[in-house]
């Protein structure tokens, strides 16, 4: 900034004056002040000289032949455009009307004839300060404008990368409705959905503290972990643990992510929910009534891995039921009167709706009504998942990334977990990973995962833990089943589950043989016969599913070893 110029700053000054003597006097005065003078004898010449010489300041006689001072000032101001070129009228006029006309034409000030040297010097100096200040402001404005354009450019590129990483997954599935209002290009809220290899899906909805870039940066690793682990077959609680650990490590203290994770299993007709810091969610029953899903955990990124609890709460869910979750932007939506919609507002809006995923639009309308269609002050995200019949669930294979690698064809492996590990670790992602190294099996990873999962769950829950699946038929028994599962997992010291996988090439493709053996007492498949019709028999549903997926299935006596053979065809 050079607003305080030294007294000697030399300016280029245009003097337009038709009287030769007056012009001579003024030229001398101005030159002696150290400035460079450009002379003109009438208005038209003044405009021409202005165009050629680009002076810093203009001294203009009001009354001149050919073009008077007023018109000349107008043209000079138009030529100067954005630049401030002070125009000072030289005048012997004294009536207020004429002086005002000079200013109206674009003049900045007057100097009365005869000239006073001191006043002339002071005015030139003052207007130069104004000129320099104006130029500085203009430059700063242009800089800011350019920086802003650059920033927007960078943001839109970053947004493309961001959208590729934090894509919306299977949010467009027909049984999902959602609404997400971005407050800026980036959004403090996150909303992801990913199909599981075994069918069903995981959904993650969350709200980072803050908005914009910091929130978006946190969202990227969350998306990577969420999609990566879900696709590989990890359970929701394992995904949560990993995300929490990652956020705890990378986020500064004070920044975290309020979130809810959903594990929807349409085959079993159940949803598992983990709510850490989001407002109440609602499981809306088709038959009427609702189950409220409270936040029971600290947000993600707050607790150390040792203290973090990733236990989901499981609910039975039937086709037609819907699960609604939202970020706190919905509750905090406020109108002109600054009154928030609040917990009560949301609750009554939800009650008024009943059931069905359309509750999202209903609630968004309610928020609009409340805020009088004011732009959202916060980020607001809602999602409703409608529970559907298993066969309506959209497929998984389409979303799976393809690898160019051919992979092994002739191999076998054995993997056993035992003791307390049974309760703490799921071998399924690992086994699926081994299988999907075979390129032909990658296409049917859904079927492979389901077979592995059914074999494993049968072996663990019914073989090792000896839990009766009839319990799961009622809501009370359902909770009891999971409590008991948790309890019995603590005493599995002498137990094991062993998988043996074998793969070989065939003429038309390949053959995968999976054997799963457990340390339990086994069961007699024949004894389960009488219950088969109601589908609630011992391991009944799981075995039926295995039978459907596998080409061959053998159960040994006493029923603690199951072998399935699966053929795939080369395309």
């Amino acid at each position, binding site marked *: 900034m050079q607003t305080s110029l030294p007294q000697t700053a030399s300016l280029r000054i245009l003097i337009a004056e038709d009287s030769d003597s007056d012009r001579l006097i003024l030229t001398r005065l101005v030159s002696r002040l150290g400035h460079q003078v450009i002379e003109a004898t009438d208005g038209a010449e003044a405009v021409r000289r202005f165009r050629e010489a680009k002076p810093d300041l203009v001294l203009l006689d009001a009354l001149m032949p050919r073009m008077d001072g007023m018109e000349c000032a107008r043209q000079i101001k138009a030529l100067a455009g954005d630049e401030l070129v002070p125009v000072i009228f030289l005048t012997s006029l004294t009536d207020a009307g004429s002086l005002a006309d000079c200013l109206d034409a674009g003049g900045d000030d007057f100097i009365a004839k005869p000239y006073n040297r001191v006043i002339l010097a002071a005015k030139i100096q003052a207007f130069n300060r104004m000129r320099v200040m104006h130029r500085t402001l203009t430059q700063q404005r242009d800089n800011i404008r350019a920086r802003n354009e650059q920033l927007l450019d960078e943001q839109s590129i970053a947004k493309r990368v961001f959208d590729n990483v934090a894509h919306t997954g299977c949010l467009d599935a027909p049984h999902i409705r959602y609404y997400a209002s971005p407050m800026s290009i980036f959004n403090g809220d996150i909303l992801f959905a990913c199909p599981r290899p075994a069918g069903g899906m995981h959904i993650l909805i969350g709200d980072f*503290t*803050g908005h914009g870039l910091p929130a978006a940066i946190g969202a990227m690793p969350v998306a990577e972990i969420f999609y990566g682990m879900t696709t590989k077959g990890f359970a929701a609680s394992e995904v949560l643990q990993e995300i929490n650990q990652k956020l705890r490590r990378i986020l500064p203290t004070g920044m975290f992510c309020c979130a809810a994770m959903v594990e929807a299993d349409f085959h079993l007709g159940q949803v598992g929910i983990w709510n850490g810091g989001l407002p109440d969610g609602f499981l809306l029953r088709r038959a009427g009534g609702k189950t409220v899903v409270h936040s029971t*955990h600290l947000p993600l990124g707050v607790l150390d891995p040792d203290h973090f609890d990733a236990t989901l709460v499981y609910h039975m869910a039937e086709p037609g039921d819907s699960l609604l979750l939202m970020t706190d932007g919905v509750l905090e939506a406020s109108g002109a009167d600054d009154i928030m919609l609040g917990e009560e507002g949301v609750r009554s809006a939800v009650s008024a709706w009943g059931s069905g995923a359309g509750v999202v639009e209903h609630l968004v309308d309610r928020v609009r009504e409340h805020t009088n269609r004011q732009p959202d002050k916060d980020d607001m995200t809602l999602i409703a998942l409608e529970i559907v019949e298993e066969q309506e669930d959209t497929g998984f294979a389409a979303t799976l990334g393809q690898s160019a690698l051919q992979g092994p064809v002739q191999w076998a492996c054995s993997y056993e977990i035992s003791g307390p590990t049974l309760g703490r670790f799921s071998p399924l992602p690992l086994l699926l990973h081994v299988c999907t190294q075979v390129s032909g099996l990658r296409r049917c990873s859904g079927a492979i995962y389901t077979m592995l999962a059914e074999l494993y769950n049968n072996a663990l829950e019914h073989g090792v833990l000896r839990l009766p699946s009839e319990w799961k038929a009622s809501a009370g028994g359902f909770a009891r089943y999971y409590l008991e599962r948790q309890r019995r997992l603590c005493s599995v010291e002498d137990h094991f589950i062993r998988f043996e996988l074998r793969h070989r090439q065939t003429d038309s493709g390949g053959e995968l043989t999976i054997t799963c053996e457990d340390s339990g007492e086994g069961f007699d498949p024949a004894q389960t016969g009488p219950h088969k019709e109601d589908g609630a028999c011992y391991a009944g549903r799981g075995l039926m599913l295995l039978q459907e997926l596998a080409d061959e299935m053998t159960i040994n006596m006493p029923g603690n070893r199951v072998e399935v053979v699966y053929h795939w065809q080369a395309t």
Partner: protein
Amino acid sequence: MPIETHRSEDGRVLTIRIEGRFDFSSHQAFRDAYEHAEPGVAQYIVDLSDTTYLDSSALGMLLLLRDYAGGDGSSIRICNCSGDVRRILSISNFEQLFDID
């Protein structure tokens, strides 16, 4: 002043009172309140009796105070919460980290 501090006579308890909205705009003042205190504080009390609103960045600031006060070994009491403020604290399950009454 929207944020006031008070030190007990023995100097061991620092009370921080927040008036009005507790959000990002209070960030610097809230940090100053405990960082500029003389050493020797054994317990912090965050008095929210005149706090009308608390947002997620305020939750973050409470976590910063907790870290400053020694993390798991810290002693921080959050008291006199209004209904709304209390609701926000419990949605985030901050009872697990702070002594809230």
